[in-house]
């Protein structure tokens, strides 16, 4: 295992400490129980947004704590959902009286732990479950689809509404709309290595890719031979469009997300391929995001998220945000 690491057991704590020091103007890191919260004091009457999940997806979620986005994030161990006392403590710390909205990715562990945290928290609260991964067939009898990169968009867009005074109910409604309007699919070229494991999560041939991979290196739709970017992007878009079925000339936000080990140059190339393919299909790209936002440790690969936008979504997307990993307008 080649990582900047001292002891696997200390990996998360040390990284969070560094994060806290490097961004001390925006956030603070609490340990025991562990959560990241905004530095500045609460705004009366603002709904508080709390997300969280296993670590290893940085900057998600800690990097999204700050003005216009999250109020707190609860990081679990690498790829393990955080524990309920983290959510409880974070909620108690940030709630200004207007209630707490938990933003949870759809994994059994996250759902169960957030549920317990919500039960343990005495204040008003509600939850949104994100499940944008179209790689997974949906079914009402199963856990359903995974929550992946669209979670970033939900956090940004709902974060802006909360900042503007949206109620708990309005925030939840908008979050659910964004989640429903979004579809994501990813592909991995290499595996990632969980620090505690010290070896790659999966083996993959020199000429292979995992199509539809999950953000923990879980298997996707199929193992395939690697292909030119245009082909990969075309296949990803087919799967998403098939699912989202945008109207002709519908405006979308195009989000090209790196898995952690793929450089920006390639992500922009993917963006270019996606832009052109979408154009040829009558889909208009109105907003963009390109970069490493919802990662899987050092995995090489990328995901594409499409979000169908209406005026309200665009307005809240454009609104100012000031976090460690996403910042504009201020």
């Amino acid at each position: 295992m080649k990582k900047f690491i001292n002891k696997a057991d200390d990996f998360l704590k040390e990284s969070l400490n560094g994060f806290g020091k490097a961004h001390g103007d925006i956030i603070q890191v609490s340990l025991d129980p562990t959560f990241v919260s905004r530095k500045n004091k609460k705004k009366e009457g603002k709904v508080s947004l709390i997300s969280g999940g296993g670590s290893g997806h940085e900057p998600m979620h800690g990097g999204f704590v700050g003005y216009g986005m999250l109020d707190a994030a609860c990081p679990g161990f690498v790829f393990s959902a955080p524990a309920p006392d983290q959510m409880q403590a974070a909620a108690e710390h940030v709630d200004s009286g207007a209630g707490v909205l938990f933003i949870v990715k759809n994994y059994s562990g996250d759902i169960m732990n957030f549920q317990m945290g919500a039960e343990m928290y005495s204040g008003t609260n509600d939850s949104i479950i994100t499940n944008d991964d179209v790689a997974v067939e949906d079914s009402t009898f199963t856990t359903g689809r995974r929550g992946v990169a669209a979670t970033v968009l939900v956090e940004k867009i709902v974060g802006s509404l909360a900042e503007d005074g949206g109620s708990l109910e309005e925030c939840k409604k908008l979050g659910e709309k964004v989640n429903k309007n979004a579809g994501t699919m990813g592909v991995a070229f290499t595996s990632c290595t969980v620090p505690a494991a010290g070896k790659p999560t999966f083996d993959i041939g020199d000429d292979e890719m995992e199509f539809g991979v999950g953000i923990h290196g879980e298997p996707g739709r199929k193992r395939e031979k690697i292909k030119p970017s245009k082909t990969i992007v075309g296949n990803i878009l087919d799967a998403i469009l098939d699912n989202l079925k945008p109207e002709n000339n519908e405006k979308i936000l195009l989000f090209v997300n790196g898995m952690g080990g793929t450089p920006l140059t390639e992500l922009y190339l993917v963006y270019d391929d996606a832009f052109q393919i979408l154009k040829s299909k009558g889909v208009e790209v109105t907003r963009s995001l390109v970069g490493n936002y919802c990662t899987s440790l050092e995995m090489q690969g990328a995901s594409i998220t499409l979000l169908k936008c209406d005026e309200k979504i665009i307005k809240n997307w454009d609104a100012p945000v000031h976090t460690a990993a996403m910042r504009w307008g201020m």
Partner: protein
Amino acid sequence: MSVNFLISQAKNIQKVINENASEIEALDQNIGDGDHIFNIQRGLKLVIELEGTIKDLPLAKALNMIAMKVLSGIGGSSGALFGTFFISMAKSPDLDKDIEFRKACEMIINGIQAMKERGKADVGEKTMMDVLIPVSVKLNEIKNNNSEIKQGLSEIIKIAEDRMLSTKDMLATKGRASFLGERAKGHIDPGARSSQLIIDTICKFIINQ
């Protein structure tokens, strides 16, 4: 059941889990995210580290502390589920009285029931519940029929093993493996395997007493 018994079982289980660590790790890498073994190991370590703090406490208090440790120290599905189990255990009535076999059975049955409610998974969904629910059913039977205990535990060992193996060819509908569809087939569920090892260890310990 006593605090001492719980701690010594945790130590036995730790040994068995460590012996089978690479197998369990591989199972969660195949159809999950690879953290199950670390979650289980972390939980056992935390419980065993409690020994000094809880060894002289009343059972109710000790169980409560174990529950909080498991719930807050593990994370993931395992943390929520085993945390739920111990919370249920800790809430059992009459913990200040002597806990004989039937009472212990009841506590375990209720704990598994709480897990089932928390995770909303039933038998056949390729999770640890495939092992735990049938074990709980059998425990209930033993308890109600006043069966011979060691004989009953031997049957439970067998049930746990069969059910663990049965997850291999299932499609998963709950948990991470559910995302894989057909690709989950052919792999034993990691939580089913670790649960089976836990049950195996405790049963064998009692049988060999």
